[in-house]
């Protein structure tokens, strides 16, 4: 497991308290899990993602990550409709371990883009992890 100093952060990203990150590109948001999350989970062996077109409220479970240690729920940090899911993860879930910020899980069309502002900044997320 990584020490705090070894953890990677995306400086432009927003974070949820459940260790998911959100990036924006135009009208859609991408969602993934943080380096801390993948490091805690260990080797990820299976990713279960929703269907395109499904809608979830903020905080609702939209999928699961299965690692050699446990199954973890994924909670959507911003409510919205699933526009696409990362097709590469079905065959190579290990990408999430090797490149957590490059391995987006889903792209959503947010129902309320303002919700982004209520997520943690990278500074606030660092503080959360340092407790």
């Amino acid at each position, binding site marked *: *497991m990584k*020490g705090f100093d070894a953890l990677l952060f995306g400086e432009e990203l927003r974070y949820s308290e459940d260790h998911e990150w959100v990036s924006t590109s135009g009208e859609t948001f991408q969602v993934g899990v943080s380096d801390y999350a993948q490091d805690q989970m260990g*080797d990820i*062996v299976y990713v279960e993602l929703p269907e395109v077109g499904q809608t979830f409220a903020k905080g609702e479970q939209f999928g699961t990550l299965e690692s*050699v240690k*446990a199954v973890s729920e994924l909670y959507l940090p911003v409510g919205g409709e699933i526009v696409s899911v990362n097709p590469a993860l079905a065959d190579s*879930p*290990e990408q999430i371990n090797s490149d957590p910020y490059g391995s987006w899980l889903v792209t959503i069309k947010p129902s309320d883009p303002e919700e982004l502002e209520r997520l943690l900044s990278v500074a606030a997320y660092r503080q959360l992890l340092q407790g």
Partner: protein
Amino acid sequence: MSGTVEANGMIQEEPLLWEKGSRGRQGMSIPAADVPPVELPAELCGAGPDFPDLSEVDVVRHYTRLSAWNYGVDSGLYPLGSCTMKYNPKINERLAATPELAAAHPLLADSEVQGCLELMYGLQEGLAAITGLPGVSLQPAAGAQGELTGMLIFAAWHRSRGSRRNKILIPDTAHGTNPASAALCGFRPVPIASGPDGILTTEAVAAVMDDETVGIMITNPNTLGLFETNIREIAEVVHARGGLVYGDGANMNAVMGVVNPALCGVDVMHLNLHKTFSTPHGGGGPGAGPVCVTAELSRFLPVPRVVRAGNGYRLDEDCPDSVGRVHAFHGNFSVLVRAYGYVLSMGAAFLKRASQLAVLNAAYLKESLKESLPLAYPRPCMHECVFSDGWLHEHNITTLDLAKRLIDYGYHPPTIYFPLVVPGAIMIEPTETESQQDLDRFIAVLKQIVAEARNNPELLRQAPTRAKLGRLDETRAARQPCLCG
């Protein structure tokens, strides 16, 4: 440290069955057909399955060699927390193998199996006395099926009152199968976080208990090995809002004869006969998860149930409110035989003593190790104690490394990374089986491994090195499982 299992010349290598034998080799000779051959329809013909060609001795040696690699409770300490891997007295195996019981056909008329029915009735009575809950069904085949049966009873009770509810409260320290069992029954699990001491607070339950909620599922002692001391107040809160309380009895080994679940406010509870009541488990073999309920809920229990009829017993199917059958015939009958033998041979006094010793052993381990490994919750434990990976981080050692190193010292590792609320959890349940000498040796080994983690962490990272095989690639096994021969 002595007692480790070193590979030696008598520990056989053994290939897969598909890699053994040779074309045309057979295990038996089939006599020549004495009837004329009949052509099969073409759609039933094909290449056939890929079975290896083996002789009888090939197969016997294969499985005998594999069995020699096995590690079980009969070989040594098996401290898998939350699993209660305790020793199962051999007399109960012998009872279960009694031909009159083992060979009784389940379709025999009641009058011809009075002994079997009496045994089931007696076990129902015994489990009712242990839980304080008078209605018992022996049918469920395992703990999770007991949970599902309990949830069906929750649903039937609410339906009988005309109440339509769909939420179920489940603490984060409940057994992992609870949410799945409730969801199978159409309920939506609502998680509740345990309090700072690792136990559930009455306030947390009161905050979410409402008129949409069927009740709560509580594992007590919980998966942190802690007793839910607020259980009575929590049950009052749930009952006051028209809900029921489910007690997951998987950890009953800690409290037999000490805690009366009915007096704690539990309405429905399952017991794991394959943990607490003398059936070997861990190999996926048959278990049993009888469900015990209050008198009020008895009419919803699965059918048939064994009832008294004059001087004898009969199976009663006439229960219009029953949730129905949950298992064919009488459940896993041989497991019931073992449990009844265990309950009768122990008696009330020694069942209680078994629980007391199980708790004493866990407390002894906890106190002996708390300076070496960080305790998850520094408070009195019940039948198991949970440590976190705390300082292991500083040495870049994981819980998995520590567990693997235990194999080098001849021990099955404890449960790790569960419960999820503890980072890098190491969950040890010694059970009442172990003597103080056995515990002292295990404690000495763990302390030695802790010292190694500080002084020579590579020993842990490379472990196991003294086992038949080294560190297995669990990730690859999960990502690219090879499921054929």
